């Protein structure tokens, strides 16, 4: 019997290195949007803590839980659970949608990563305005993105899966332009 082969969003495109910067695909096991029902945000946060060791993230923030579990702010009354399959009890408090294959998740790392993103995004991603743990939705070259700061010089960037190639092209171009300046 034939088999179906799975391809990640950035298969064949990453990793790449330009100067001191690297771009790689994260491809987390699962991505789930958590959309709390009316007045359920706190109850959802408790359930998240019990199941995954993290709370519901505040606006423009993220939370870190057990093992690789993370939750990032993903829009109005919305969070994205990254890593684990969601505990079934969360469904009592929120609409859960499997988005695992809907997003390309990449990591840009190295000194000058914020300057690369500054070439593509209209928001201030410098550490003073966007510290480690911060997460927001913005645009990169007209593509809607989610950006999270994982470390001082480490960012997670997400776009819709169908836009992976364009994002990587734009990031690579910005990385090369940055490197050319020295």
């Amino acid at each position: 019997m034939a088999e179906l082969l799975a391809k990640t969003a950035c298969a064949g495109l990453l990793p790449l290195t330009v100067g001191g910067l690297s771009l790689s695909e994260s491809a987390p096991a699962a991505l789930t949007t958590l959309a709390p029902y009316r007045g359920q945000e706190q109850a959802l946060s408790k359930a998240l803590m019990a199941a995954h060791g993290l709370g519901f993230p505040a606006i423009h923030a993220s939370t870190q839980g057990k093992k690789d579990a993370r939750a990032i702010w993903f829009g109005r009354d919305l969070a994205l659970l990254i890593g684990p399959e969601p505990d079934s009890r969360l469904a009592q408090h929120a609409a859960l949608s499997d988005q695992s294959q809907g997003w390309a998740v990449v990591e840009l790392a190295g000194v000058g990563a914020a300057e690369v993103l500054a070439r593509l995004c209209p928001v201030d991603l410098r550490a003073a305005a966007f510290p480690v743990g911060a997460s927001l939705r913005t645009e990169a070259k007209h593509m809607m993105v989610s950006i999270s700061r994982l470390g001082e010089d480490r960012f997670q960037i997400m776009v819709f899966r169908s836009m992976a190639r364009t994002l990587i092209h734009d990031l690579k171009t910005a990385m090369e332009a940055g490197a050319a300046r020295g």
Partner: protein
Amino acid sequence: MLDFVYSNTFSTLKQGRVRYGLMLREDGFVMDDGTTARLGPNHYVMTTTTAAAGEVMAHLEFILQVLHPEWDARAISVTEHWAQFAVAGPKSRELLNGLLDQPIDGDSWPFIACGEVSVLGVKGRLFRISFSGEEAYELALPACYGDSLFRSLLARAEGLGGGAYGMEALNVLRIEKGFITHAEINGTVTAHDLGMAGMLSKKKAFIGQAMAARPGLVDPERMQMVGLKPIGAVKELSAGAHLFSPEDPVERIFDQGYVTSAGFSPLMGHMIALGFLKQGVNRIGDEIRLVDHMRGIDTLCEVVEPVFFDPEGERTRG
């Protein structure tokens, strides 16, 4: 909420079934059409036209945030998570049964059925819906399997004497069936114009209901959707052409309507078209002159019903 956003009723839709729906804008004109499938007691997946996906998403958010903030429902796009393919034709079921871990039959998957399936060990969704007029299914798997699934479907289709069909073929198939796209629902047409007045429920409130009842929107003098087939020496029809009564001069003030979609139908052996014509429903069988100055086309057409093929839908139901 679905009853409010669609002009027809969705509260009677059973779990495991799909329904076609029409949405109006607040001003009473048609905004979009599509299907909604009931996956669970309180879980639905809505499809929109590609052209209006963003507009409908914003519309749903507007309803939830502004018009009915008391409703406890959430809407989110899952378009990117799924790779979904249409499998259409008399052998579509045979093709699918070569891939599905549990074969389906007409009783377990009648027209408009939907539900979870397993495809070579991967969980997905199957919808028995048809935009081609054939017995057809749409199979969705997580996007990471999209490439592999398409290759597998294509190889099996070719083994059965079929193949991939593109947008042009799809367009011809849907014109033959009189199915609308945004070529027809161009923002200036009403449900009445489309012959879909029956989809405006009288039993519940929905967006656009009041404004759709304005005299100007239900005026029988309005242009209504019709089919066209060539009867003159010139057999070419074109979208964008305008329609005139054969006895009138070809001048703007005599304009009777316009063509929205056209294509060559191998089934009919000639070109067919959909368009809007003043009092069109009363002019079936009449001759009309089609003029396209840009492409230099001037031909006579017969006004026909907008459904060219299988009006009873027997092929779709298998």
